[in-house]
Protein backbone atom coordinates (compact mmCIF):
# COMPACT_ATOMS: atom_id res chain seq x y z
CA UNK A 1 0.00 0.00 0.00
CA UNK A 2 1.42 3.36 -0.97
CA UNK A 3 2.22 5.70 1.83
CA UNK A 4 0.79 9.20 1.78
CA UNK A 5 3.61 11.73 1.84
CA UNK A 6 3.81 13.98 4.87
CA UNK A 7 2.81 16.98 2.74
CA UNK A 8 -0.41 15.35 1.54
CA UNK A 9 -1.08 14.05 5.09
CA UNK A 10 -1.04 17.65 6.35
CA UNK A 11 -3.49 18.72 3.64
CA UNK A 12 -5.82 15.81 4.45
CA UNK A 13 -5.81 16.74 8.12
CA UNK A 14 -6.50 20.37 7.27
CA UNK A 15 -9.36 19.35 5.02
CA UNK A 16 -10.84 17.25 7.81
CA UNK A 17 -10.68 20.17 10.21
CA UNK A 18 -12.29 22.45 7.64
CA UNK A 19 -15.13 19.98 7.12
CA UNK A 20 -15.77 19.82 10.86
CA UNK A 21 -15.83 23.61 11.09
CA UNK A 22 -18.23 23.92 8.14
CA UNK A 23 -20.52 21.25 9.56
CA UNK A 24 -20.50 23.08 12.91
CA UNK A 25 -21.38 26.38 11.25
CA UNK A 26 -24.19 24.78 9.24
CA UNK A 27 -25.47 23.27 12.44
CA UNK A 28 -25.31 26.65 14.16
CA UNK A 29 -27.15 28.23 11.23
CA UNK A 30 -29.87 25.60 11.30
CA UNK A 31 -30.25 25.93 15.02
CA UNK A 32 -30.40 29.68 14.74
CA UNK A 33 -33.02 29.38 12.02
CA UNK A 34 -35.11 26.99 14.05
CA UNK A 35 -34.64 29.22 17.04
CA UNK A 36 -36.04 32.12 15.04
CA UNK A 37 -39.30 30.42 14.35
CA UNK A 38 -39.96 29.44 17.95
CA UNK A 39 -38.46 32.53 19.57
CA UNK A 40 -40.45 34.84 17.31
CA UNK A 41 -43.67 33.28 18.52
CA UNK A 42 -44.40 31.56 15.24
CA UNK A 43 -47.63 29.70 15.01
CA UNK A 44 -49.87 28.28 12.34
CA UNK A 45 -52.45 30.47 10.75
CA UNK A 46 -55.35 28.20 9.98
CA UNK A 47 -57.78 31.03 9.47
CA UNK A 48 -59.44 31.64 6.13
CA UNK A 49 -56.45 33.81 5.27
CA UNK A 50 -53.94 31.20 6.26
CA UNK A 51 -55.56 28.26 4.50
CA UNK A 52 -57.79 29.86 1.88
CA UNK A 53 -60.41 28.22 -0.25
CA UNK A 54 -58.94 25.63 -2.59
CA UNK A 55 -60.53 25.92 -6.03
CA UNK A 56 -61.76 23.19 -8.33
CA UNK A 57 -61.14 22.95 -12.04
CA UNK A 58 -59.96 25.40 -14.65
CA UNK A 59 -62.57 28.05 -13.98
CA UNK A 60 -61.88 27.82 -10.25
CA UNK A 61 -58.18 28.38 -10.87
CA UNK A 62 -58.86 31.41 -13.02
CA UNK A 63 -61.30 32.87 -10.53
CA UNK A 64 -58.92 32.51 -7.59
CA UNK A 65 -55.53 33.08 -9.15
CA UNK A 66 -56.22 35.01 -12.36
CA UNK A 67 -55.33 33.78 -15.81
CA UNK A 68 -52.43 31.45 -16.53
CA UNK A 69 -49.02 33.16 -16.54
CA UNK A 70 -50.51 36.41 -15.21
CA UNK A 71 -48.30 39.10 -13.75
CA UNK A 72 -49.23 38.30 -10.14
CA UNK A 73 -48.51 34.59 -10.35
CA UNK A 74 -44.94 34.93 -9.04
CA UNK A 75 -45.39 37.89 -6.70
CA UNK A 76 -44.84 35.94 -3.47
CA UNK A 77 -41.48 34.50 -2.45
CA UNK A 78 -40.09 32.19 0.19
CA UNK A 79 -36.56 30.97 0.74
CA UNK A 80 -36.32 27.18 0.92
CA UNK A 81 -33.26 25.07 1.74
CA UNK A 82 -31.98 22.90 -1.12
CA UNK A 83 -34.18 24.66 -3.65
CA UNK A 84 -31.42 25.15 -6.22
CA UNK A 85 -29.24 22.15 -5.43
CA UNK A 86 -28.66 19.76 -2.60
CA UNK A 87 -27.90 21.94 0.43
CA UNK A 88 -28.02 25.04 -1.76
CA UNK A 89 -31.06 27.07 -0.86
CA UNK A 90 -32.95 29.43 -3.08
CA UNK A 91 -36.11 31.40 -3.60
CA UNK A 92 -39.36 29.81 -4.64
CA UNK A 93 -41.92 32.09 -6.28
CA UNK A 94 -45.69 31.57 -6.21
CA UNK A 95 -49.02 33.38 -6.09
CA UNK A 96 -49.71 35.72 -3.15
CA UNK A 97 -53.02 33.93 -2.53
CA UNK A 98 -50.85 31.25 -0.91
CA UNK A 99 -48.38 33.55 0.85
CA UNK A 100 -49.45 32.73 4.39
CA UNK A 101 -50.01 29.03 3.76
CA UNK A 102 -46.63 28.54 2.11
CA UNK A 103 -44.53 31.28 3.69
CA UNK A 104 -45.80 30.93 7.22
CA UNK A 105 -47.54 27.61 7.69
CA UNK A 106 -45.45 25.25 5.60
CA UNK A 107 -42.09 27.00 5.73
CA UNK A 108 -42.64 27.74 9.40
CA UNK A 109 -43.39 24.10 10.15
CA UNK A 110 -40.19 22.98 8.49
CA UNK A 111 -38.12 25.55 10.34
CA UNK A 112 -39.77 25.13 13.70
CA UNK A 113 -39.49 21.34 13.49
CA UNK A 114 -35.75 21.52 12.66
CA UNK A 115 -36.53 19.73 9.39
CA UNK A 116 -34.58 21.78 6.86
CA UNK A 117 -32.62 18.62 6.08
CA UNK A 118 -35.79 16.85 5.00
CA UNK A 119 -36.12 19.21 2.04
CA UNK A 120 -34.18 18.09 -1.00
CA UNK A 121 -33.27 19.48 -4.36
CA UNK A 122 -35.12 20.88 -6.32
CA UNK A 123 -37.93 23.05 -5.12
CA UNK A 124 -39.84 24.98 -7.77
CA UNK A 125 -42.85 27.24 -7.83
CA UNK A 126 -44.09 29.48 -10.62
CA UNK A 127 -43.40 28.41 -14.19
CA UNK A 128 -45.39 29.35 -17.29
CA UNK A 129 -45.62 25.97 -18.97
CA UNK A 130 -48.07 23.54 -20.53
CA UNK A 131 -48.84 20.04 -19.37
CA UNK A 132 -47.16 17.36 -21.43
CA UNK A 133 -49.02 16.67 -24.65
CA UNK A 134 -52.02 18.81 -23.86
CA UNK A 135 -53.39 22.29 -24.33
CA UNK A 136 -53.84 22.87 -20.62
CA UNK A 137 -51.41 25.07 -18.76
CA UNK A 138 -49.55 23.50 -15.86
CA UNK A 139 -50.87 24.54 -12.44
CA UNK A 140 -47.42 26.09 -11.95
CA UNK A 141 -48.56 28.71 -14.49
CA UNK A 142 -50.89 30.17 -11.88
CA UNK A 143 -48.24 30.05 -9.14
CA UNK A 144 -50.55 27.55 -7.49
CA UNK A 145 -48.21 24.57 -7.34
CA UNK A 146 -44.87 23.80 -5.74
CA UNK A 147 -42.56 20.91 -6.56
CA UNK A 148 -40.27 19.73 -3.78
CA UNK A 149 -37.68 16.97 -3.33
CA UNK A 150 -37.82 16.60 -7.09
CA UNK A 151 -34.51 14.76 -7.65
CA UNK A 152 -35.45 11.75 -5.53
CA UNK A 153 -39.12 11.81 -6.54
CA UNK A 154 -39.19 12.17 -10.33
CA UNK A 155 -42.31 12.47 -12.43
CA UNK A 156 -43.79 9.02 -12.97
CA UNK A 157 -42.39 7.47 -9.80
CA UNK A 158 -45.18 5.68 -7.94
CA UNK A 159 -43.91 6.15 -4.41
CA UNK A 160 -42.46 8.87 -2.19
CA UNK A 161 -38.80 8.82 -1.15
CA UNK A 162 -38.42 10.62 2.16
CA UNK A 163 -34.64 10.89 1.98
CA UNK A 164 -33.74 14.53 2.42
CA UNK A 165 -30.72 16.60 1.56
CA UNK A 166 -29.19 15.45 4.84
CA UNK A 167 -29.25 11.84 3.65
CA UNK A 168 -31.72 10.79 6.34
CA UNK A 169 -35.09 9.20 5.65
CA UNK A 170 -37.77 11.50 6.98
CA UNK A 171 -40.62 9.32 5.83
CA UNK A 172 -43.69 11.28 4.81
CA UNK A 173 -42.79 14.40 6.78
CA UNK A 174 -42.56 16.65 3.70
CA UNK A 175 -45.80 15.49 1.99
CA UNK A 176 -47.62 15.67 5.29
CA UNK A 177 -46.56 19.24 5.88
CA UNK A 178 -47.84 20.26 2.43
CA UNK A 179 -51.05 18.29 2.32
CA UNK A 180 -51.42 17.42 5.96
CA UNK A 181 -53.31 14.75 7.53
CA UNK A 182 -56.71 16.14 6.65
CA UNK A 183 -57.38 19.01 6.64
CA UNK A 184 -53.76 20.10 6.92
CA UNK A 185 -52.50 22.75 4.59
CA UNK A 186 -54.64 21.31 1.81
CA UNK A 187 -52.26 21.03 -1.09
CA UNK A 188 -53.34 18.20 -3.39
CA UNK A 189 -50.52 15.69 -3.81
CA UNK A 190 -49.48 14.43 -7.24
CA UNK A 191 -48.99 10.94 -5.84
CA UNK A 192 -52.79 10.80 -5.65
CA UNK A 193 -53.28 11.37 -9.37
CA UNK A 194 -54.93 8.30 -10.83
CA UNK A 195 -53.05 8.77 -14.08
CA UNK A 196 -49.29 9.27 -14.17
CA UNK A 197 -48.06 9.86 -10.62
CA UNK A 198 -46.18 13.02 -9.78
CA UNK A 199 -44.81 12.53 -6.25
CA UNK A 200 -42.88 15.81 -6.03
CA UNK A 201 -45.87 17.93 -7.06
CA UNK A 202 -48.25 19.73 -4.67
CA UNK A 203 -51.00 21.88 -6.13
CA UNK A 204 -53.72 24.09 -4.68
CA UNK A 205 -56.54 22.90 -6.91
CA UNK A 206 -58.35 19.67 -7.62
CA UNK A 207 -59.91 18.47 -10.83
CA UNK A 208 -57.31 20.11 -13.02
Amino acid at each position, binding site marked *: MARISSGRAHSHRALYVLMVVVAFLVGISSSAEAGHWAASGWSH*DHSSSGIPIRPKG*FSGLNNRFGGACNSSADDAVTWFPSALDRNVGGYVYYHPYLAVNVGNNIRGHIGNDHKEGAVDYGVYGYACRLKTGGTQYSVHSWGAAVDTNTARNPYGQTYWSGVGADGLNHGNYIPNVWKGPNPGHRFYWGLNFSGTKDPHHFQYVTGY
Partner: protein
Amino acid sequence: MIRRFWFAGVVLVVLTVSAIGAAGPGRQPPPGCLNSVSTRSADEESDVARGRGLAALVEDTIVMVREGGDRQEYRHAGGPPELLRHISSLDGVGTAYVNDRGGADAVVLVTGDGLMEIQEPGEAAHPALSTTGDLAWSLDMASLRVRSAADGTISTFTRPEGALAVFSPVFTGPQEITAVVQEPVLGDSGHDDLLNNLWRYDIAAASWTRLTDFTSDGDRWSLIRTPVLDEDGSLLFVRLEALWSATQPPTFELWRLNQGSASKVSDLPGEMFLAGVSEGRLYWNVDADNGGEWRVAEDRGSRLEDRGCGSVAVDPRNELDPDLVGGEGSDPAGDSSPGGSYPGERHPQEIAQAVGLAVKLGDFSSRREAEAVGAAVALDPAALVNHRMAPGAVAPGAWALVWRIAEGADPQTELARLRAAFPQYAERMWITVL
Protein backbone atom coordinates in the same frame (compact mmCIF):
# COMPACT_ATOMS: atom_id res chain seq x y z
CA MET B 1 -55.90 24.12 -53.53
CA ILE B 2 -53.82 26.97 -52.16
CA ARG B 3 -55.19 27.60 -48.72
CA ARG B 4 -55.26 31.24 -47.78
CA PHE B 5 -55.41 32.16 -44.13
CA TRP B 6 -57.59 34.87 -42.69
CA PHE B 7 -54.75 36.32 -40.67
CA ALA B 8 -52.30 36.49 -43.60
CA GLY B 9 -53.08 40.15 -44.10
CA VAL B 10 -54.93 42.44 -41.78
CA VAL B 11 -56.03 40.44 -38.79
CA LEU B 12 -59.77 40.49 -38.85
CA VAL B 13 -61.64 38.15 -36.62
CA VAL B 14 -65.36 37.94 -37.00
CA LEU B 15 -66.80 35.66 -34.44
CA THR B 16 -70.48 35.82 -33.82
CA VAL B 17 -70.25 34.54 -30.32
CA SER B 18 -73.39 34.56 -28.30
CA ALA B 19 -73.13 35.39 -24.61
CA ILE B 20 -72.25 32.10 -23.10
CA GLY B 21 -71.17 31.69 -19.52
CA ALA B 22 -68.66 29.08 -18.53
CA ALA B 23 -70.23 25.89 -17.32
CA GLY B 24 -69.44 24.71 -13.87
CA PRO B 25 -68.61 21.12 -13.13
CA GLY B 26 -71.36 18.76 -14.16
CA ARG B 27 -73.16 17.51 -17.19
CA GLN B 28 -74.92 20.66 -18.35
CA PRO B 29 -73.29 22.47 -21.26
CA PRO B 30 -73.34 26.24 -21.31
CA PRO B 31 -76.68 27.72 -22.29
CA GLY B 32 -77.04 28.15 -26.02
CA CYS B 33 -74.32 25.60 -26.76
CA LEU B 34 -76.57 22.81 -27.99
CA ASN B 35 -79.66 23.25 -30.08
CA SER B 36 -81.73 20.40 -28.83
CA VAL B 37 -81.94 17.55 -26.44
CA SER B 38 -79.76 15.00 -28.20
CA THR B 39 -82.01 12.04 -28.85
CA ARG B 40 -80.12 10.67 -31.81
CA SER B 41 -77.56 8.08 -30.97
CA ALA B 42 -74.07 8.12 -32.42
CA ASP B 43 -74.53 4.68 -33.94
CA GLU B 44 -73.53 3.02 -37.21
CA GLU B 45 -76.22 4.87 -39.16
CA SER B 46 -75.20 8.33 -38.02
CA ASP B 47 -72.98 10.99 -39.52
CA VAL B 48 -70.63 10.17 -36.69
CA ALA B 49 -70.11 6.70 -38.14
CA ARG B 50 -69.69 8.12 -41.64
CA GLY B 51 -67.27 10.78 -40.46
CA ARG B 52 -69.34 13.37 -42.27
CA GLY B 53 -68.24 16.77 -41.03
CA LEU B 54 -65.88 17.95 -38.32
CA ALA B 55 -66.55 16.12 -35.08
CA ALA B 56 -66.53 18.16 -31.90
CA LEU B 57 -67.49 17.40 -28.30
CA VAL B 58 -69.76 19.33 -25.99
CA GLU B 59 -69.87 17.46 -22.68
CA ASP B 60 -71.38 14.07 -23.64
CA THR B 61 -72.67 15.20 -27.02
CA ILE B 62 -70.94 14.68 -30.33
CA VAL B 63 -71.53 17.50 -32.76
CA MET B 64 -70.83 17.02 -36.45
CA VAL B 65 -70.10 20.42 -37.93
CA ARG B 66 -70.75 20.76 -41.64
CA GLU B 67 -69.83 23.44 -44.11
CA GLY B 68 -71.87 26.58 -43.66
CA GLY B 69 -72.42 26.00 -39.97
CA ASP B 70 -74.86 23.10 -39.98
CA ARG B 71 -74.52 21.22 -36.69
CA GLN B 72 -75.88 17.74 -36.12
CA GLU B 73 -75.90 16.55 -32.53
CA TYR B 74 -75.60 12.96 -31.34
CA ARG B 75 -75.58 11.21 -28.03
CA HIS B 76 -72.58 9.10 -27.04
CA ALA B 77 -73.74 5.51 -27.41
CA GLY B 78 -71.00 3.69 -25.56
CA GLY B 79 -70.35 2.94 -21.91
CA PRO B 80 -71.03 5.48 -19.17
CA PRO B 81 -69.13 8.61 -20.08
CA GLU B 82 -66.97 10.25 -17.46
CA LEU B 83 -65.20 12.83 -19.56
CA LEU B 84 -65.29 12.67 -23.36
CA ARG B 85 -62.35 14.41 -25.02
CA HIS B 86 -60.03 14.38 -28.04
CA ILE B 87 -62.24 13.57 -31.02
CA SER B 88 -61.38 13.20 -34.69
CA SER B 89 -63.37 12.24 -37.75
CA LEU B 90 -62.48 11.20 -41.27
CA ASP B 91 -65.00 11.38 -44.08
CA GLY B 92 -66.02 7.95 -45.26
CA VAL B 93 -64.22 6.25 -42.40
CA GLY B 94 -65.68 7.21 -39.03
CA THR B 95 -65.07 9.02 -35.78
CA ALA B 96 -62.95 8.25 -32.73
CA TYR B 97 -62.68 9.84 -29.30
CA VAL B 98 -61.55 9.16 -25.75
CA ASN B 99 -63.76 8.30 -22.78
CA ASP B 100 -61.53 9.55 -19.98
CA ARG B 101 -62.08 7.69 -16.73
CA GLY B 102 -60.23 7.95 -13.46
CA GLY B 103 -57.37 5.57 -14.17
CA ALA B 104 -57.89 3.48 -17.31
CA ASP B 105 -59.49 5.14 -20.33
CA ALA B 106 -61.37 3.79 -23.32
CA VAL B 107 -60.89 4.73 -26.97
CA VAL B 108 -64.27 4.83 -28.71
CA LEU B 109 -64.47 4.10 -32.44
CA VAL B 110 -67.70 4.62 -34.36
CA THR B 111 -67.87 3.36 -37.94
CA GLY B 112 -70.40 1.80 -40.24
CA ASP B 113 -69.64 -1.49 -38.51
CA GLY B 114 -70.90 -0.10 -35.23
CA LEU B 115 -69.39 1.18 -32.04
CA MET B 116 -66.31 -0.29 -30.45
CA GLU B 117 -64.75 0.62 -27.11
CA ILE B 118 -61.12 -0.27 -26.73
CA GLN B 119 -60.28 -0.52 -23.03
CA GLU B 120 -56.81 0.75 -22.35
CA PRO B 121 -54.70 0.25 -19.21
CA GLY B 122 -53.93 3.95 -18.82
CA GLU B 123 -54.38 7.43 -20.25
CA ALA B 124 -55.41 7.51 -23.92
CA ALA B 125 -55.09 10.64 -26.02
CA HIS B 126 -55.49 12.03 -29.54
CA PRO B 127 -57.03 9.18 -31.56
CA ALA B 128 -56.56 9.56 -35.31
CA LEU B 129 -57.93 7.61 -38.30
CA SER B 130 -56.26 6.62 -41.54
CA THR B 131 -58.00 6.42 -44.91
CA THR B 132 -57.99 2.65 -44.61
CA GLY B 133 -59.66 2.71 -41.21
CA ASP B 134 -56.63 2.08 -39.04
CA LEU B 135 -56.76 3.90 -35.71
CA ALA B 136 -53.81 5.35 -33.81
CA TRP B 137 -53.65 6.99 -30.39
CA SER B 138 -51.20 7.78 -27.63
CA LEU B 139 -51.12 5.68 -24.47
CA ASP B 140 -49.79 7.33 -21.31
CA MET B 141 -47.84 9.64 -23.62
CA ALA B 142 -45.27 6.84 -23.65
CA SER B 143 -46.19 4.94 -26.80
CA LEU B 144 -48.40 4.92 -29.86
CA ARG B 145 -51.02 2.26 -30.23
CA VAL B 146 -52.37 1.32 -33.65
CA ARG B 147 -55.42 -0.82 -34.30
CA SER B 148 -55.51 -2.47 -37.68
CA ALA B 149 -58.81 -2.17 -39.49
CA ALA B 150 -58.00 -5.33 -41.42
CA ASP B 151 -57.76 -7.75 -38.53
CA GLY B 152 -58.39 -5.75 -35.37
CA THR B 153 -54.97 -6.38 -33.91
CA ILE B 154 -53.38 -3.63 -31.83
CA SER B 155 -49.68 -2.88 -32.11
CA THR B 156 -47.61 -0.78 -29.76
CA PHE B 157 -44.78 1.50 -30.87
CA THR B 158 -42.70 2.99 -28.10
CA ARG B 159 -41.50 6.59 -28.27
CA PRO B 160 -38.09 7.35 -29.75
CA GLU B 161 -35.17 6.40 -27.56
CA GLY B 162 -34.41 9.13 -25.07
CA ALA B 163 -37.72 10.88 -25.65
CA LEU B 164 -40.01 11.71 -22.75
CA ALA B 165 -43.39 11.46 -24.46
CA VAL B 166 -45.13 10.90 -27.78
CA PHE B 167 -48.62 12.12 -28.68
CA SER B 168 -50.88 13.58 -31.40
CA PRO B 169 -50.31 10.93 -34.07
CA VAL B 170 -51.35 11.64 -37.67
CA PHE B 171 -51.35 9.10 -40.49
CA THR B 172 -49.22 10.83 -43.14
CA GLY B 173 -48.86 7.77 -45.36
CA PRO B 174 -50.01 4.17 -45.72
CA GLN B 175 -47.31 2.91 -43.43
CA GLU B 176 -46.21 6.00 -41.63
CA ILE B 177 -47.36 8.07 -38.69
CA THR B 178 -46.13 11.54 -37.83
CA ALA B 179 -46.37 12.44 -34.17
CA VAL B 180 -45.27 15.05 -31.66
CA VAL B 181 -42.41 14.00 -29.41
CA GLN B 182 -41.38 15.57 -26.13
CA GLU B 183 -37.60 15.74 -26.03
CA PRO B 184 -35.46 16.10 -22.89
CA VAL B 185 -33.83 19.41 -22.00
CA LEU B 186 -30.68 19.34 -19.88
CA GLY B 187 -31.44 20.15 -16.28
CA ASP B 188 -35.19 19.90 -16.62
CA SER B 189 -37.20 17.39 -14.62
CA GLY B 190 -39.41 16.47 -17.57
CA HIS B 191 -42.51 17.35 -15.61
CA ASP B 192 -44.52 19.52 -18.02
CA ASP B 193 -43.45 20.22 -21.57
CA LEU B 194 -40.38 22.19 -22.64
CA LEU B 195 -39.39 20.99 -26.11
CA ASN B 196 -41.28 19.26 -28.91
CA ASN B 197 -40.40 18.18 -32.39
CA LEU B 198 -42.22 16.25 -35.10
CA TRP B 199 -41.04 12.71 -35.70
CA ARG B 200 -42.15 10.19 -38.29
CA TYR B 201 -42.60 6.52 -37.51
CA ASP B 202 -42.12 4.05 -40.35
CA ILE B 203 -44.30 1.11 -39.40
CA ALA B 204 -42.68 -1.38 -41.76
CA ALA B 205 -39.15 -0.44 -40.75
CA ALA B 206 -40.10 0.11 -37.10
CA SER B 207 -37.95 3.21 -37.01
CA TRP B 208 -38.29 6.84 -36.00
CA THR B 209 -36.99 9.84 -37.97
CA ARG B 210 -36.84 13.37 -36.62
CA LEU B 211 -38.50 15.86 -38.97
CA THR B 212 -38.15 19.27 -37.30
CA ASP B 213 -35.36 20.95 -35.38
CA PHE B 214 -36.86 23.25 -32.76
CA THR B 215 -34.77 23.92 -29.66
CA SER B 216 -35.09 25.03 -26.05
CA ASP B 217 -32.51 26.77 -23.89
CA GLY B 218 -34.17 25.69 -20.65
CA ASP B 219 -36.07 28.91 -20.00
CA ARG B 220 -37.39 29.48 -23.51
CA TRP B 221 -39.58 26.59 -24.49
CA SER B 222 -40.96 25.50 -27.85
CA LEU B 223 -44.00 23.23 -28.18
CA ILE B 224 -46.05 21.70 -30.99
CA ARG B 225 -49.75 21.05 -30.73
CA THR B 226 -52.63 19.79 -32.88
CA PRO B 227 -50.93 18.68 -36.10
CA VAL B 228 -53.49 18.35 -38.90
CA LEU B 229 -53.11 16.80 -42.33
CA ASP B 230 -54.01 19.26 -45.07
CA GLU B 231 -55.55 18.20 -48.35
CA ASP B 232 -52.27 18.56 -50.24
CA GLY B 233 -50.56 16.10 -47.91
CA SER B 234 -48.68 18.72 -45.96
CA LEU B 235 -48.97 18.90 -42.19
CA LEU B 236 -50.18 22.03 -40.45
CA PHE B 237 -49.39 22.51 -36.77
CA VAL B 238 -49.48 25.15 -34.06
CA ARG B 239 -46.22 26.10 -32.41
CA LEU B 240 -46.09 27.82 -29.02
CA GLU B 241 -43.12 29.62 -27.55
CA ALA B 242 -42.55 31.31 -24.20
CA LEU B 243 -40.14 31.88 -21.34
CA TRP B 244 -41.29 29.80 -18.40
CA SER B 245 -39.80 32.33 -15.96
CA ALA B 246 -41.79 35.22 -17.42
CA THR B 247 -45.30 36.18 -16.41
CA GLN B 248 -46.48 36.38 -19.96
CA PRO B 249 -48.55 33.90 -21.97
CA PRO B 250 -46.89 32.14 -24.90
CA THR B 251 -46.99 33.25 -28.50
CA PHE B 252 -48.89 31.11 -30.98
CA GLU B 253 -47.78 30.45 -34.56
CA LEU B 254 -49.07 28.42 -37.48
CA TRP B 255 -46.50 26.25 -39.22
CA ARG B 256 -46.51 23.87 -42.17
CA LEU B 257 -44.38 20.79 -42.71
CA ASN B 258 -44.18 20.08 -46.43
CA GLN B 259 -41.91 17.54 -48.09
CA GLY B 260 -39.62 17.39 -45.11
CA SER B 261 -39.28 21.13 -44.62
CA ALA B 262 -41.01 23.13 -41.90
CA SER B 263 -41.82 26.80 -42.34
CA LYS B 264 -43.82 29.34 -40.41
CA VAL B 265 -47.05 30.39 -42.07
CA SER B 266 -48.00 33.18 -39.72
CA ASP B 267 -48.29 34.44 -36.18
CA LEU B 268 -51.62 33.75 -34.53
CA PRO B 269 -53.46 36.46 -32.59
CA GLY B 270 -53.96 34.43 -29.44
CA GLU B 271 -54.70 31.06 -27.94
CA MET B 272 -56.04 28.88 -30.74
CA PHE B 273 -55.43 25.37 -31.96
CA LEU B 274 -56.12 23.48 -35.17
CA ALA B 275 -59.27 21.39 -35.15
CA GLY B 276 -59.06 19.67 -38.50
CA VAL B 277 -59.81 19.73 -42.22
CA SER B 278 -63.26 18.65 -43.32
CA GLU B 279 -64.98 19.01 -46.68
CA GLY B 280 -62.12 21.16 -47.87
CA ARG B 281 -62.40 23.60 -44.96
CA LEU B 282 -59.92 24.25 -42.20
CA TYR B 283 -61.31 24.51 -38.70
CA TRP B 284 -59.91 25.93 -35.48
CA ASN B 285 -60.64 25.67 -31.78
CA VAL B 286 -60.62 29.22 -30.48
CA ASP B 287 -60.66 30.57 -26.96
CA ALA B 288 -63.02 33.38 -27.80
CA ASP B 289 -63.92 34.18 -24.23
CA ASN B 290 -60.42 34.30 -22.75
CA GLY B 291 -60.79 31.35 -20.44
CA GLY B 292 -64.32 30.27 -21.28
CA GLU B 293 -65.51 27.44 -23.46
CA TRP B 294 -63.79 26.35 -26.63
CA ARG B 295 -65.45 27.46 -29.85
CA VAL B 296 -65.20 25.93 -33.30
CA ALA B 297 -64.35 28.41 -36.03
CA GLU B 298 -64.28 27.82 -39.78
CA ASP B 299 -61.42 29.41 -41.65
CA ARG B 300 -62.96 31.25 -44.59
CA GLY B 301 -59.69 32.65 -45.91
CA SER B 302 -60.29 36.28 -45.05
CA ARG B 303 -62.04 35.69 -41.77
CA LEU B 304 -63.04 33.16 -39.14
CA GLU B 305 -66.67 32.26 -38.80
CA ASP B 306 -67.99 30.91 -35.55
CA ARG B 307 -69.45 27.43 -35.76
CA GLY B 308 -70.56 27.13 -32.14
CA CYS B 309 -69.07 25.56 -29.08
CA GLY B 310 -67.18 22.30 -29.03
CA SER B 311 -63.71 20.96 -28.48
CA VAL B 312 -61.82 18.75 -30.89
CA ALA B 313 -58.18 17.99 -30.04
CA VAL B 314 -57.96 20.54 -27.23
CA ASP B 315 -58.30 19.53 -23.60
CA PRO B 316 -61.66 20.20 -21.95
CA ARG B 317 -61.92 23.46 -20.08
CA ASN B 318 -64.54 23.34 -17.42
CA GLU B 319 -65.06 19.66 -16.81
CA LEU B 320 -63.16 18.22 -13.87
CA ASP B 321 -60.44 15.77 -14.81
CA PRO B 322 -61.47 12.41 -13.32
CA ASP B 323 -57.80 11.56 -12.74
CA LEU B 324 -57.31 14.58 -10.51
CA VAL B 325 -60.25 14.43 -8.16
CA GLY B 326 -59.69 11.32 -6.12
CA GLY B 327 -57.40 9.97 -3.48
CA GLU B 328 -56.19 11.31 -0.18
CA GLY B 329 -56.63 15.01 0.38
CA SER B 330 -59.12 15.50 -2.40
CA ASP B 331 -62.12 15.66 -0.15
CA PRO B 332 -64.37 18.51 -1.13
CA ALA B 333 -65.21 19.52 2.42
CA GLY B 334 -62.79 22.37 2.46
CA ASP B 335 -62.88 23.30 -1.18
CA SER B 336 -65.76 25.71 -0.97
CA SER B 337 -65.23 26.91 2.52
CA PRO B 338 -62.28 28.54 4.18
CA GLY B 339 -59.85 26.75 6.42
CA GLY B 340 -60.10 26.84 10.15
CA SER B 341 -60.15 24.53 13.09
CA TYR B 342 -61.37 21.09 12.16
CA PRO B 343 -62.37 18.49 14.69
CA GLY B 344 -59.54 16.19 15.51
CA GLU B 345 -56.79 18.50 14.29
CA ARG B 346 -53.81 18.53 16.60
CA HIS B 347 -52.01 21.85 16.43
CA PRO B 348 -50.93 23.14 19.81
CA GLN B 349 -50.69 26.75 18.63
CA GLU B 350 -53.78 26.83 16.49
CA ILE B 351 -54.27 30.53 16.63
CA ALA B 352 -55.68 32.64 13.85
CA GLN B 353 -53.58 35.74 13.91
CA ALA B 354 -51.91 38.13 11.60
CA VAL B 355 -48.62 36.64 10.53
CA GLY B 356 -45.64 38.70 9.46
CA LEU B 357 -46.77 39.47 5.92
CA ALA B 358 -44.57 42.07 4.32
CA VAL B 359 -43.41 43.52 1.06
CA LYS B 360 -39.73 42.81 0.65
CA LEU B 361 -37.16 44.75 -1.39
CA GLY B 362 -33.97 42.81 -1.93
CA ASP B 363 -31.68 41.09 -1.81
CA PHE B 364 -28.68 43.23 -1.02
CA SER B 365 -25.25 41.78 -0.57
CA SER B 366 -24.39 43.99 2.40
CA ARG B 367 -26.11 45.81 5.22
CA ARG B 368 -24.54 49.04 4.02
CA GLU B 369 -26.05 48.68 0.58
CA ALA B 370 -29.45 47.92 2.09
CA GLU B 371 -29.20 50.93 4.40
CA ALA B 372 -28.38 53.19 1.47
CA VAL B 373 -31.42 52.08 -0.46
CA GLY B 374 -33.50 52.26 2.69
CA ALA B 375 -32.50 55.89 3.09
CA ALA B 376 -33.40 56.55 -0.53
CA VAL B 377 -36.91 55.19 -0.03
CA ALA B 378 -37.23 56.84 3.36
CA LEU B 379 -37.63 53.55 5.16
CA ASP B 380 -37.05 53.18 8.89
CA PRO B 381 -33.70 51.53 9.61
CA ALA B 382 -35.57 48.97 11.70
CA ALA B 383 -36.96 47.62 8.47
CA LEU B 384 -33.69 45.90 7.61
CA VAL B 385 -33.74 42.12 7.93
CA ASN B 386 -31.33 39.31 7.20
CA HIS B 387 -31.59 35.53 7.07
CA ARG B 388 -31.21 35.07 10.79
CA MET B 389 -34.05 37.48 11.44
CA ALA B 390 -36.27 36.17 8.64
CA PRO B 391 -35.04 32.79 7.37
CA GLY B 392 -38.00 32.28 5.08
CA ALA B 393 -37.74 35.72 3.53
CA VAL B 394 -34.02 36.40 3.02
CA ALA B 395 -31.23 34.20 1.72
CA PRO B 396 -28.21 33.51 3.94
CA GLY B 397 -25.67 36.29 3.78
CA ALA B 398 -28.11 38.79 2.28
CA TRP B 399 -30.12 41.72 3.55
CA ALA B 400 -33.51 43.07 2.58
CA LEU B 401 -35.83 45.95 3.33
CA VAL B 402 -39.37 45.20 4.41
CA TRP B 403 -42.64 47.07 4.69
CA ARG B 404 -44.92 45.20 7.04
CA ILE B 405 -48.45 44.73 5.75
CA ALA B 406 -51.08 45.79 8.24
CA GLU B 407 -53.61 43.23 9.39
CA GLY B 408 -56.54 43.23 7.04
CA ALA B 409 -54.69 45.01 4.25
CA ASP B 410 -54.53 43.35 0.87
CA PRO B 411 -50.94 42.25 0.19
CA GLN B 412 -51.25 42.61 -3.57
CA THR B 413 -52.57 46.12 -3.25
CA GLU B 414 -49.66 47.03 -1.01
CA LEU B 415 -47.18 45.49 -3.40
CA ALA B 416 -48.65 47.39 -6.32
CA ARG B 417 -48.58 50.63 -4.34
CA LEU B 418 -44.92 50.26 -3.43
CA ARG B 419 -43.91 49.21 -6.93
CA ALA B 420 -45.63 52.30 -8.27
CA ALA B 421 -44.02 54.48 -5.61
CA PHE B 422 -40.52 53.16 -6.28
CA PRO B 423 -40.50 51.94 -9.90
CA GLN B 424 -36.72 51.71 -9.96
CA TYR B 425 -37.01 48.85 -7.47
CA ALA B 426 -40.25 47.30 -8.72
CA GLU B 427 -38.50 44.26 -10.17
CA ARG B 428 -36.98 43.45 -6.77
CA MET B 429 -40.14 43.60 -4.68
CA TRP B 430 -42.21 40.63 -3.57
CA ILE B 431 -44.67 39.61 -0.91
CA THR B 432 -43.14 37.45 1.78
CA VAL B 433 -43.59 36.31 5.36
CA LEU B 434 -41.16 37.37 8.06
